[in-house]
């Protein structure tokens, strides 16, 4: 059985090979490229599940001694850095989720990345996106990054795969880089890609500082080596001096630096701004990278490094508190923004930010098992929701085309004018009543929304969210508990606002009235994911829960709990608690009920403003503008940036001037002095003496040669005459005794 684990290092390889095969060889053959990518990722999926289930079968043995395989990689001067793979309980559950979700999304992309001929009849694209092969190459490379990150046994490898994913995220957000919008303030895919890349870069740099500090302090980046109690103790007890702030425990400093990497990658406040704009990428990308896998890599990193955070917690300055604060704040903050968004994908994006905040809050209060559980469940239902939204967008786009076509038959005069008007197929105000037109998409989307809202007892989201709330209640983090409960209420509200606006009521536009259901390769992954969005949660039902709890026995919680104990994380199974359970049922059902009151009972009419706009007034405007963070960060091209930013820009200008005139001045002066001195040396020493000696030698030889060559007449008789004269001279010399 343990031999199966030797497959672990192979898991990231097939998509990498597919990536190279596509970019190097099969690029011109679109379907071949996509089949290759899907085949490769399916192979990875099979291997991940083999490994994951082998682990689930033997976890009693493996929690204490995780499987590890490594080989020497880099000589570091003091030793050899080893590269390898390791499988513990977290890796196993991540492999279970990642391999599966990747494959579902690859299959979905096969149907999604089409390019209807009517968009540009001049292009002969076989109905596929012009850059179809490239898309599959990128997502294959991404799959390598994610799978590699999960199996990596040390932080350096993790960081490498982390950056591979960052690159793929950038490439895929900007996949339609030539797309522009009539509104100059609407961010284009190209800008969104840059924004995502640059924003996450802030976090990545801080993460790298954290890794360097860790390596300096311990000489190790391997997880198992760092998690040894003596190493953690050493970290917690040594101190690092931070300029202006004083000395802190090394564990706290490193943990906070590492957490900043997660803030960037998982789009937490204050680096959350990139994720909603990342929705400019193709929808499978939003589902894959910006909901299920890459953004959860940040959470995964903190889950992975939890022993370090726990060690930091024992010092007086808890890094965990910071994590809990950022997480809980982001959970509520992003949920409020999601209330006022009309773009179907933006709502989901803010909900992702909010749910990731949930997980961080859970990690911050030490609910390690609950956070991991929620991470996996969230990946299933959020991938489902994003893929569902992609299907909706596709359907509405088709409907839009269909409606236009219909109009064209009635009056040609209007046709062109109509065609020019910009139609946003992602705006929920343009939808309505889609459930009848797109039943498969609609019902799976509703299941996803129910899971996201935490619909009681049935859905996966309920069990994972409930466990986080229960943990917060049990450990006495009342503030975190109520913040998360409020966020859960808002989550249920905006999820069903989305459902009611999109699928119920009457169609608000011709496009929605003519929408068509998507192809089988898109709906089948939706259905499979819908099953997981419900059933996956059953593995984590608390044992004390009446009926089902005893039968299922909470296998996930037990296994992760054992792993937590192996990492000395002070995990205790929660006792039955009624308050959090009731609160989580009430907020979930309450949110759904409120959404029904506002949007379900009396559906929006075409052109009718959102009722919230009237009730919330200026608050709504603030939410609509996402608390003006884009304005504050100056990321909108045509909006005058906020005062603080203008001050920052002014400061930059001042500093730049200082740099140009003072720093550069000194540098250039030193440089110029060197140049002048060298020039003087050249003129007065090198050219005069050194060159003089060299050239002089040559000149003497030349003059001597030109004189002596006259002797060489080539005539034998002349030579003989000279010999004669020479002999005579010699004789005269001898005879006359000169």
């Amino acid at each position, binding site marked *: 059985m343990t031999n199966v684990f030797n497959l672990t290092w192979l898991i990231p390889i097939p998509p990498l090979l597919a990536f190279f095969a596509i970019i190097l060889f099969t690029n011109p053959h679109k379907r071949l490229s996509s089949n290759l990518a899907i085949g490769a990722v399916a192979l990875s999926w099979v291997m991940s599940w083999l490994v994951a289930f082998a682990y689930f079968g033997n976890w009693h043995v493996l929690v204490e001694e995780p499987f590890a395989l490594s080989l020497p990689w880099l000589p570091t001067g003091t030793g050899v850095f080893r590269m390898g793979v390791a499988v513990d309980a977290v890796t196993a559950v991540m492999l279970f989720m990642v391999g599966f979700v990747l494959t579902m999304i690859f299959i979905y992309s096969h149907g999604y990345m089409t390019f209807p001929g009517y968009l540009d009849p001049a292009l002969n694209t076989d109905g596929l996106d012009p850059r179809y092969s490239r898309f599959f190459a990128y997502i294959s490379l991404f799959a390598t990054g994610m799978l590699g990150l999960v199996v990596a046994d040390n932080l350096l490898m993790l960081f490498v795969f982390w950056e591979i994913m960052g690159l793929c995220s950038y490439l895929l957000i900007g996949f339609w880089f030539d797309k522009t919008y009539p509104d100059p303030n609407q961010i284009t895919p190209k800008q969104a890609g840059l924004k995502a890349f640059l924003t996450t870069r802030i976090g990545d740099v801080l993460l790298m500082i954290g890794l360097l500090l860790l390596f300096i302090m311990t000489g190790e980046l391997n997880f198992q080596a760092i998690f040894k109690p003596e190493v953690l103790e050493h970290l917690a007890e040594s101190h690092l001096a931070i300029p202006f702030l004083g000395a802190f425990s090394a564990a706290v400093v490193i943990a906070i630096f590492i957490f900043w990497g997660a803030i960037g990658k998982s789009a937490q406040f204050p680096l959350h701004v990139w994720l909603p704009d990342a929705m400019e990428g193709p929808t499978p990308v939003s589902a894959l990278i910006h909901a299920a896998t890459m953004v959860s890599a940040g959470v995964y990193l903190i889950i992975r490094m939890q022993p370090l955070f726990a060690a930091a917690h024992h010092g007086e300055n808890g890094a965990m508190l910071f994590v809990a604060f950022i997480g809980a704040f982001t959970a509520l903050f992003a949920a409020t923004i999601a209330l006022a968004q009309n773009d179907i994908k933006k709502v989901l994006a803010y909900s992702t930010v909010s749910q990731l905040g949930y997980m961080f809050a859970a990690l911050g209060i030490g609910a390690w098992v609950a956070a991991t559980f929620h991470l996996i469940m969230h990946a299933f239902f959020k991938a489902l929701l994003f893929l569902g939204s992609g299907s909706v967008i596709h359907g509405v786009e088709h409907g839009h085309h269909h409606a236009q076509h219909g109009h064209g038959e009635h009056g040609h005069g209007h046709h062109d004018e109509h065609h020019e008007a910009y139609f946003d197929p992602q705006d929920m105000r343009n939808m309505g009543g889609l459930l009848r037109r797109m039943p498969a998409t609609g019902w799976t989307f509703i299941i996803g929304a129910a899971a996201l809202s935490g619909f009681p007892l049935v859905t996966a989201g309920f069990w994972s969210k409930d466990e986080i709330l229960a943990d917060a209640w049990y450990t006495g983090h009342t503030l975190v508990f109520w913040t998360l409960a409020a966020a859960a209420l808002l989550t249920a509200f905006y999820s069903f606002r989305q459902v009611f606006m999109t699928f119920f009521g009457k169609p608000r536009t011709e496009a929605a009235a003519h929408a068509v259901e998507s192809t089988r390769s898109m709906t089948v992954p939706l259905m499979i994911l819908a099953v997981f969005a419900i059933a996956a949660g059953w593995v984590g039902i608390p044992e004390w829960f009446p009926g089902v709890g005893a039968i299922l026995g909470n296998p996930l919680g037990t296994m992760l709990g054992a792993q937590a104990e192996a990492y000395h994380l002070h995990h205790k199974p929660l006792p039955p608690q009624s308050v959090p359970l009731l609160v989580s049922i009430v907020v979930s059902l309450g949110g759904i009920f409120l959404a029904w009151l506002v949007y379900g009972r009396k559906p929006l009419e075409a052109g009718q403003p959102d009722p919230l706009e009237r009730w919330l007034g200026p608050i709504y405007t603030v939410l609509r503008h996402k608390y003006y963070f884009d304005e504050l960060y100056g990321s909108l091209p045509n909006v005058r940036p906020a005062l603080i930013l203008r001050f920052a820009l002014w400061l930059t200008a001042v500093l730049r001037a200082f740099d140009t005139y003072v720093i550069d001045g000194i540098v250039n002066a030193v440089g110029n002095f060197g140049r002048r001195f060298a020039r003087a040396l050249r003129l007065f020493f090198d050219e005069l003496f050194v060159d003089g000696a060299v050239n002089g030698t040559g000149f003497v030889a030349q003059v001597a040669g030109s004189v*002596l060559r006259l002797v060489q007449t080539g*005539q034998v008789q002349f030579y*003989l005459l000279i010999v004669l004269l020479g002999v005579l001279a010699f004789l005269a010399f001898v005879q006359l005794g000169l």
Partner: protein
Amino acid sequence: MTIPLSWYLLLAATLFCIGFFGVLSRRNAVAALMGVELMLNAVNINLVGFWRYVRPADLTGQIFAIFVLAVAAAEAAVGLALMIAIYRTRRTINVDEIDLLKG
């Protein structure tokens, strides 16, 4: 009455000078070669003269003279062959015009 050694030496010196002058002054390479022969024979006279007057008991002088004759023959053969070769390529054996080694 015998002829003293000095006469022979004078004859040889005269012959040598005539030969050397020939070598230096003749334009024709064959004539210059003939001058060389004269110089060689002047040496022969010296060798034979010294043998006869100084060490008549030894055969050294005679042997040397025969040696020189043989070398002279070989030299004449090689020299003439060179002349012919030069004539074939350059159509002249005027030594003033043969100055390929001019610096």
